[in-house]
């Protein structure tokens, strides 16, 4: 780990008057990046990218997954070093060796995955990594400072709360406070609304406006067109590592313009959503209640149904009970109430029993729940079938038929792995997810429970996952789709159930669904209607 710094961070001149005083020229840009190139093995993530950020603006960086947005910002935040290119902050050339250098120059990034210590308090997390206090932690004093700072930017937070007690939205506030406490004048936010409910997002936008009003600048990474137009002053669009539009003012831009710049083709995935005749009820959840790991109520008398040939989407903001819902259905957690699969009770039965009832499961964590990383592709593909012939031969596993099965799946589902003996930790996210789906689909389940099936995948992989789900639906399977991507649910599902604080607060056919209403339901704004 190197801590070296090729150039010292420039001293920040706190008032913009200074710039004017130094000769009446236009104030230097807050950030100016020229000709940035960054390669990863097999990928040219940034190809001669230019980017500039003015003081006091919200600048959106728009692009699909894999377009190179996060790479560019990780370079600005000191996490990666560019292979070529130049970065200026307040007019001075910088070369960051670590995020610490970037922060010293006033650049702070809030990542999509928070970097907080769950067992520590808000204040402790904010102090983490700082040079002051020098030795003794004076908690009262720091807590007061944090409270003041939060108030100044209109953020509600208890400085003494422990992180694990906080909602995701509150945790995001801690991340922002962390940067502000370090004197960040430029805040980079990586898809900040992905984890927020619409109302929480509004709070965030208000905070960001307070910041820009003080002369701070914000980079807002997103792939959601609506919110980009709502919050940003200007937008830079990237596609496949290149900038397709630089610093376009949002005033006057339309969603259609941005969409074309972003994908270079029609935005709408052409999904084959043929009509499927609905069959009998396959999954029938009746009044299920349960607690989560913290022994707080996770589900409160949840009832829902999924019929054969139907995809039901669960829309909810992170932490409203949908994250555990799959584990109650698949027998991984205990609950009270009744769950029927094809008429048979499965609640509180062992996972093996639920499996035998024809329930397939694509879990949220595909690298340590959905697969065993150091075992071969074959071992991973037989995970749900080693108990039955032909893979099982009495108490033995028949190696030859296991390999035949694995080879067949690799072929059919285009799993890019050198051989079926390859350890699955070496597969890319998309290939691993295809392998998991292949295994689950091939158990010919009556019901599939899929959680965040496309999180972190590139565009091509997302499409192939969506196709597989729709194909399953057309063969008459019932699918429960739990996703934080509302767009995904609206594109795939026939019905959407909205969850809030462990309850189903609304249920409607997607054809009649209206985003505004779903958003309201997701935030508990319309509870009586449920």
């Amino acid at each position: 780990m190197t801590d070296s710094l090729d150039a010292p961070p420039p001293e920040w001149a706190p008032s913009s008057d200074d710039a004017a005083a130094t000769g009446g020229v236009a104030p230097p840009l807050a950030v100016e990046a020229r000709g940035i190139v960054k390669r990863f093995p097999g990928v040219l993530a940034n190809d001669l990218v230019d980017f500039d950020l003015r003081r006091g603006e919200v600048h959106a960086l728009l692009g699909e997954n894999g377009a190179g947005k996060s790479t560019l910002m990780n370079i600005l935040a000191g996490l990666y070093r560019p292979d070529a290119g130049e970065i200026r902050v307040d007019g001075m050339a910088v070369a960051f060796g670590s995020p610490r250098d970037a922060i010293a120059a006033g650049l702070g990034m809030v990542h999509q995955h928070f970097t907080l210590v769950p067992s520590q308090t808000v204040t402790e997390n904010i102090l983490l990594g700082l040079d002051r206090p020098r030795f003794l932690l004076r908690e009262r004093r720091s807590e007061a400072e944090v409270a003041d700072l939060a108030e100044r930017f209109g953020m509600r937070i208890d400085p003494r709360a422990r992180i694990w007690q906080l909602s995701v939205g509150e945790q995001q506030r801690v991340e922002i406070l962390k940067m502000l406490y370090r004197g960040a004048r430029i805040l980079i936010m990586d898809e900040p609304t992905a984890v927020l409910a619409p109302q929480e997002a509004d709070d965030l936008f208000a905070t960001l406006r307070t910041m820009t009003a003080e002369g701070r600048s914000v980079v807002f990474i997103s792939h959601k067109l609506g919110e980009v137009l709502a919050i940003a002053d200007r937008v830079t669009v990237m596609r496949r590592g290149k900038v397709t539009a630089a610093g376009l003012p949002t005033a006057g831009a339309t969603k259609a313009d941005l969409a074309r710049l972003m994908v270079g083709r029609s935005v709408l995935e052409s999904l084959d959503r043929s009509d499927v005749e609905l069959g009998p009820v396959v999954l029938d959840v009746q009044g299920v209640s349960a607690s989560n790991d913290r022994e707080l109520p996770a589900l409160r008398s949840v009832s829902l149904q999924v019929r054969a040939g139907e995809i039901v989407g669960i829309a909810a903001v992170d932490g409203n009970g949908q994250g555990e819902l799959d584990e109650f259905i698949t027998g991984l957690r205990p609950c009270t109430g009744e769950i029927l699969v094809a008429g048979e009770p499965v609640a509180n039965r062992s996972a093996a029993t639920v499996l035998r009832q024809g329930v397939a499961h694509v879990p949220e964590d595909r690298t340590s729940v959905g697969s065993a990383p150091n075992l071969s592709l074959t071992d991973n593909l037989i995970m749900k079938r080693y108990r039955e012939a032909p893979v099982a031969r009495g108490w033995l596993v028949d190696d030859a038929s296991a390999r035949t099965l694995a080879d067949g799946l690799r072929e059919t589902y285009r799993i890019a792995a050198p051989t079926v003996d390859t350890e699955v930790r070496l597969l890319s996210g998309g290939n691993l997810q295809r392998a998991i789906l292949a295994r689950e689909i091939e158990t010919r389940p009556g019901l599939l429970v899929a959680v965040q099936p496309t999180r972190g995948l590139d565009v091509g992989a997302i499409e192939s996952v969506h196709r597989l789900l729709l194909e399953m639906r057309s063969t008459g399977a019932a699918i429960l789709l739990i996703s934080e991507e509302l767009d995904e649910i609206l594109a795939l599902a026939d019905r959407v159930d909205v969850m809030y604080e462990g309850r189903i607060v609304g249920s409607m056919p997607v054809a009649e669904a209206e985003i505004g209403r779903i958003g309201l339901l997701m935030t508990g704004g319309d509870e009586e209607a449920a």
Partner: protein
Amino acid sequence: MNVRLEPRTATPRWLSPAITFGAVVVALVISGAIIAIVGGDPIRSYLHILDASFGSVGVLSDTLVKATPLILTGLACALAFRMRLWNIGAEGQFLLGAWGASAVVLFPLVPAGLPGIVLIPLMMLAGMAAGGLWGLIPGVLRARLGVNEIIATLMLNYIALFWIQFWVFGPWSQGGFQQTKPFPEAAWLPRLTDLADVVPAFGGLTVHLGLLFGLVAAGLLWLFLERSRFGYEIRLIGDSPRAARYAGIDIGRRLVVVFAISGALAGLAGMSEVNGTVHRLQDHISPGYGFTAVIVAYLAKFRPGRVIVAAILFGALILAGREIQPSGVPSMIQGIILFTLIVGDVLVRYRVRIDRGGGAPVAPSAAATPTPEAG
């Protein structure tokens, strides 16, 4: 300068055995250096070990006698380690196995004068049952109460030691000595030398039936681990318990079963030792077979076939090491071998890259698959 580890995407077939061999050689060189530093003669020591363990058919036979309990305890550890279950209690389970077998003839639990063909299987069963029950304790504690099995098994080793001492100093003591009376001859495991009438070349060879127990157990364990559904489940649990649960496997139950089988194997080792060599129960029947087993299992990469080879090597070390001064040398060599083996493991899993100068990227090149934009 910057040292980085990059996961290997493909591992040549020869690499792992080559590195294992290299690790043993490096360990012997380091140990030799230490022996030289404390004033010994490493080359003479090593030659002595070689000569005193493999130099003639007679000593080779003695080596195999020492290797016999190591094969069985090594298998016990290999089985548990496959599931990442750290059974460090093979020593205690060995002792309990010896005690259980002894109990059959010393209490006695069976009428005197039973023929060997009945008595020996009974003592095997008793030894395996006692070792298995001793193994069950940490298994149940871990499965039910989440108690760390390393601490539990280690403490049970000490308790087993005092348990044996109680019996050999107390109720079973022969004339106040720290040993019991000898077992009836029917209980002795047949030795090669017993066949000297038929095959004169076998005269004086002490290898006993216990070796066959070890070889058969290795074969059965191989079948169990590599080919059975249970073996597959153990592999799955060992790699990712959460994935195993997701696949519908009851981990707690597997854990208890594995601990019981592991304990039974170590218990069989104890039975084989008292019935095959000392023919009575006494204090100090184990020079640490249960601890050496940890290294045997590790050297064998938890594979039953290789456990046999590793056990023979360490059997030689224990046999010949007794005469080597200073007395801690064999134990020291074992520790160093274990260290070089785990460092060698790193070389099998990762490619070591050394960058000079400041041109190293800040980006984590060690990340398994650098997806430039995750989500």
